[in-house]
C-alpha cells in the first residue's frame, strides 16, 4: 500500500514541476491523509504550496481524526471533524473558534523551507491578511471563484446550529405572541385594545400589530418567512453536517493503541481475559463485532445515527405538504335542511392559486336524514347525517351516514359533520295543515343553542299580532308558550299528542333539523401524513443510541473502551454487566 508520505512526495513533485494543475480536492485529501497519519510539517508545507499556486486559503480543508499530543492543535471531543486550515501568524493562541478547528501554523518558529514565491519582505511574520491580499492580487479570475463560493458560503451560514436555534426560538416566540394577540379581528378592535396613548410595555401599539401583520400571525409574511428560513436551515444542516457525520460513523475504525482506548468515555481493563470472549459476549448483547488481530471494534444502534436525518427530512416533508395544503385546497361549509341537496362545486371555494377543481365537484349531495343521539340525561351524544351522492347522470355513487369523527370521503373530497340547527317545525293546527314553521336561532350567551318560532293567532295583519311561541333546544322536545307568554307545555315531535292552547289544538308532527357540513379537498394530506409517519418512526429510532466499543488485547489484559451518543446512563451499566460475564482465563493457559 502506498503510504501518504510517499504519495505526498510524488504529488508535490508533480506540482512543483508544473505537470499537475493545483487540484484543490486532491490536495485536501492529501492534507487530511497526512494530518491523520500524524504528520504535522508536511501538510502545512502543502498548504503553503497551494497558496503559492493561487489557491484561496479558505478552500483548503482537512479532515482531522486525531489530536496532536503536544497540544499545538486543539482537537474537539468528537473523534473526527472537518475543519479549515487558516493561515495565521499569531503563535500560541487558542485556535478553536466558533466550533471550527483552526490549527495555526507557527510561522515565527523556524521552518525548514523557503517562501520565495511570496513577495513578502519578512516571511517569518507572514500574516493572514498578507496571504489574503496576495491571493486577491493574483488574478481577476478571483471574481469567478468568489461567485462559485457564494452557494457554499450560504450553505455554511445556514447550517450553523446557532442560527437554526435562533430561528426555532423566534418561531416559538412568534407563535406565543400569536396566541396572546387576538387573531383575525377588525382593525377597530386593535385601535381600541392597543391604543397609542397607553401602549403595552411602553411601546407596543396597534401600529405594531397591523404593521407587522400580527393580527393574522400564522399567515403573516414574517412568520412564513421564518418558517422558510428554518426549512432552508434544515436542508443545509442535513447536507452539510449530518450526512458527513454518518459517513464518519459508518467507518469501522479499530483503535490500535491502548492509550486511545483509555481516552474513551467508558474504559476498563480486564486482566487475564481474551478479546475473543469479549467479542462473543458483545455479539450476544446485539453488537456487530469486528475482529482484526488483537483489536476489536463493535457497534450497535447505528440507526440511531441515521434517524436524525430522517427526522429532518420528515419535517421538510410536512412543511412541503403544508405548503401544498395552503395553496391547493378547497374549503366550504354549508347548512342544509334535511331532505334538500346541493352540488359540491357550489360550496367549495379555492384557497390558493394551485386549487384546481376536478370532475367530482359536479357531484350532488342529498341529505337523506339528520338526527341526533342522546344520553339518558338528555344531552346530545352524537350527530348523524345520512348522505347520498349522485353523479351527473343522477346515479347514486355512494351513501354513508356521517357523524363527528366519521367523515365521508369521495374522490378527494371529504364531508365533515360539524354543526347543526333546526330549520322548521311541522305542525297541524286544528287538524289543518301540515304547516311548516321556519325556526330561527336565538342568541344566547354560551355554547347552548336555542331555536324559536312563532305561530300567529287571530288577525295576522294587525301590528300587535299575538301568537304561540315554540322554543326548542334540540330535536327532542318543543316548549310551547301561549299568546300571553305563559308556559303551556312540552311536546315531543312524533308523539302525535295534541296540545290545547286557548281552544286551539296543535299537533307537532316533526322537527326538521338541518345539518352543518364542512367540505374540503386537500392535496397536501397524503404528503403530510407520510411526513407524520416518518417523523414518528424516526423520532422513535432517534431515541436509540449508537454505542461503540473498542478493545485491544494487550498481553493477557484486554483494554476496553467505549462510548455512546445518547444512552450515557445505561451504557456504562450495560458495559459493566457485560464485562462481568467475560470469563477469566484459567491459570493453566497462562502458564503455557
Amino acid at each position: 500500500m502506498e503510504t501518504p508520505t510517499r504519495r505526498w512526495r510524488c504529488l508535490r513533485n508533480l506540482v512543483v514541476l508544473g505537470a499537475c494543475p493545483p487540484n484543490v480536492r486532491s490536495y485536501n485529501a492529501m492534507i487530511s491523509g497526512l494530518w491523520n497519519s500524524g504528520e504535522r510539517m508536511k501538510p502545512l508545507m502543502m498548504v503553503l504550496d497551494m497558496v503559492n499556486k493561487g489557491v484561496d486559503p479558505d478552500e483548503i480543508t482537512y479532515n482531522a481524526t486525531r489530536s496532536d499530543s503536544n497540544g499545538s492543535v486543539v482537537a474537539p471531543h468528537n473523534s473526527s471533524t472537518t475543519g479549515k486550515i487558516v493561515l495565521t501568524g499569531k503563535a500560541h493562541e487558542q485556535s478553536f473558534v466558533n466550533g471550527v478547528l483552526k490549527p495555526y501554523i507557527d510561522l515565527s518558529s523556524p521552518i525548514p523551507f523557503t517562501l520565495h514565491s511570496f513577495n513578502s519582505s519578512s516571511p517569518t511574520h507572514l500574516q493572514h491578511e498578507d496571504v489574503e491580499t496576495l491571493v486577491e492580487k493574483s488574478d481577476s479570475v478571483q471574481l469567478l471563484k468568489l461567485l462559485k463560493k457564494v452557494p457554499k458560503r450560504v450553505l455554511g451560514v445556514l447550517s450553523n446550529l446557532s442560527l437554526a436555534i435562533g430561528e426555532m426560538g423566534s418561531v416559538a416566540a412568534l407563535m406565543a405572541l400569536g396566541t396572546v394577540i387576538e387573531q383575525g379581528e377588525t382593525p377597530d378592535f386593535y385601535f381600541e385594545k392597543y391604543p397609542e396613548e397607553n401602549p403595552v410595555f411602553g411601546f407596543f401599539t396597534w401600529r405594531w400589530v397591523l404593521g407587522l401583520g400580527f393580527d393574522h400571525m400564522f399567515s403573516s409574511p414574517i412568520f412564513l418567512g421564518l418558517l422558510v428560513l428554518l426549512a432552508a436551515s434544515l436542508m443545509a444542516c442535513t447536507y452539510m453536517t449530518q450526512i458527513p457525520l454518518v459517513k464518519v460513523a459508518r467507518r469501522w475504525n479499530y483503535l490500535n493503541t491502548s492509550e486511545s482506548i483509555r481516552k474513551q468515555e467508558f474504559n476498563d481493563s480486564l486482566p487475564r481475559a481474551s478479546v475473543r470472549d469479549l467479542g462473543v459476549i458483545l455479539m450476544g448483547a446485539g453488537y456487530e463485532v469486528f475482529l482484526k488481530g488483537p483489536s476489536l471494534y463493535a457497534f450497535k444502534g447505528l440507526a440511531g445515527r441515521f434517524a436524525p436525518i430522517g427526522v429532518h427530512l420528515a419535517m421538510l416533508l410536512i412543511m412541503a405538504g403544508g405548503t401544498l395544503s395552503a395553496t391547493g385546497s378547497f374549503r366550504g361549509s354549508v347548512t342544509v335542511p334535511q331532505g334538500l341537496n346541493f352540488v359540491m362545486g357550489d360550496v367549495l371555494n379555492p384557497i390558493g392559486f394551485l386549487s384546481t377543481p376536478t370532475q367530482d365537484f359536479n357531484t350532488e349531495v342529498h341529505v337523506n336524514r339528520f338526527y341526533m343521539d342522546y344520553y339518558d340525561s338528555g344531552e346530545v351524544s352524537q350527530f348523524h347525517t345520512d348522505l347520498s351522492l349522485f353523479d351527473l347522470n343522477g346515479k347514486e355513487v355512494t351513501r354513508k351516514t356521517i357523524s363527528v369523527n366519521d367523515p365521508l370521503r369521495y374522490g378527494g373530497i371529504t364531508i365533515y359533520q360539524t354543526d347543526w340547527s333546526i330549520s322548521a317545525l311541522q305542525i297541524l293546527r286544528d287538524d289543518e295543515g301540515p304547516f311548516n314553521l321556519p325556526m330561527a336561532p336565538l342568541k344566547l350567551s354560551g355554547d347552548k343553542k336555542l331555536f324559536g318560532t312563532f305561530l300567529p293567532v287571530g288577525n295576522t295583519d294587525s301590528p300587535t299580532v299575538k301568537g304561540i311561541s315554540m322554543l326548542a333546544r334540540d330535536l327532542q322536545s318543543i316548549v310551547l308558550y301561549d299568546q300571553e307568554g305563559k308556559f303551556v307545555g312540552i311536546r315531543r315531535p312524533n308523539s302525535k299528542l295534541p296540545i290545547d292552547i286557548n281552544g286551539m289544538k296543535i299537533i307537532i308532527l316533526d322537527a326538521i333539523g338541518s345539518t352543518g357540513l364542512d367540505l374540503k379537498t386537500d392535496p397536501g394530506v397524503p404528503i403530510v401524513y407520510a411526513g407524520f409517519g416518518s417523523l414518528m418512526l424516526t423520532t422513535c429510532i432517534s431515541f436509540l443510541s449508537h454505542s461503540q466499543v473498542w478493545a485491544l488485547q494487550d498481553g493477557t489484559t484486554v483494554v476496553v473502551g467505549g462510548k455512546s451518543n445518547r444512552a450515557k446512563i445505561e451504557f456504562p451499566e450495560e458495559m459493566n454487566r457485560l464485562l462481568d460475564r467475560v470469563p477469566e482465563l484459567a491459570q493453566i493457559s497462562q502458564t503455557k
Partner: protein
Amino acid sequence: MIFSTLEHILTHISFSIVSIVITIFFMTLFVHEIVGLYNSSERAMIVTLFCITGILVTRWIDSGHFPLSNLYESLMFLSWSFSIIHMVPKIRNHKKKNLFSAITAPSAIFTQGFVTSGLLTEMHQSTILVPALQSQWLMMHVSMMVLSYAALLCGSLLSVALLVITFRKNMEIFCQSDSLSFLIRPIFFDKIQYVNEKNNVLRNTCFLSVQNYHRYQLIQQLDRWSCRVISLGFLFLTIGILSGAVWANEAWGSYWNWDPKETWAFITWTIFAIYLHTRTNNNWGSKNSAILASTGFLIIWICYFGVNLLGIGLHSYGSFTLN
C-alpha cells in the same frame, strides 16, 4: 355507587402510601440512610402505582370511556405517568438509589394532592363525552400528551436541580436556600434532597477536590438523566401532537388549526427540540441547556393549564368549567 366508593378508597390508600414514602425519603435524607426503609419505600411506590391504576380502571368501567375526559382524570393520569416513569429505571435494572426517584415520587404525590384536594371537588364526577371526543384517537392522543408532560416535567425538574447546584457555590447559601425552598414551593423538594446529599458529603470530607469531584459527578448524573428523560418525553410529545393532528383532520376537517392549545404544544415541542440540539454541541455546556429546560418547565404548565384557563380555542373541553 360501588365504583365511586372503590375509587374513593383507592385514592385514599395511594395518597397515604405516597405520604409515607415521602416521609421515608425525608428520613433517609435528614437522618441517615436505612437500607430496609428505602427498599420498603420502593415497594410502596409499586403499591401506589397499582392503586392509581385501580382508580383509573374503575373510572373507565364506571363511565364507559377512557378516563381522560376532564381535568381531574387527566391529572390523575399525570400522577399515574409519574409513577410509571418512576418504575422505568427499576425495570431496566437500575437497582441502586438514583436521583431520579427523588423527582418522580414527590411529583406524583403533589399532583395527586392537588387533584384530591378540595379545590377541584366539583369536577370529580366523570362527565359525558361531547361528540368531538368520541373517537379512538382520544386514548392515543391524550395519553401520549399526558405521558409526555410527565416525562418532560421530570426532565426539566432535573435541570432545575442542576441549575441550583451549579449556581449555589457557597455552603452558607446552600443552607439558607434549604429552608427557603421549603417555604417557597413544595415542588422543589427534589432540590432539597440533592442539597442534602451534597451536604452529607461535605460533612464527611474536608478536601476541596473531593467536594468538587462529587459535585461534578452529581451535575453530570443530573445532566445525563435530564437529557435522557427529556428525549423520552420529546418522543411521546411528537407522537401525541401528530396523533392529535390526524384526529383533528378526522373531526374538524383540518390537521392544523393554530388553535392556542395546539400552538402551545408546538411551542413546547420547539423548546425541547432546541434543548436537544444544544446537547449535540459540547461547547454550549450543560448549564445553558439546563436553563432552557427550566424554561420548558414553565411552558409545559402554560400549555397544560394556562391555555385552558383562558378558555379559548377548540380544546376548551376537558378542563375547568367556567360558568
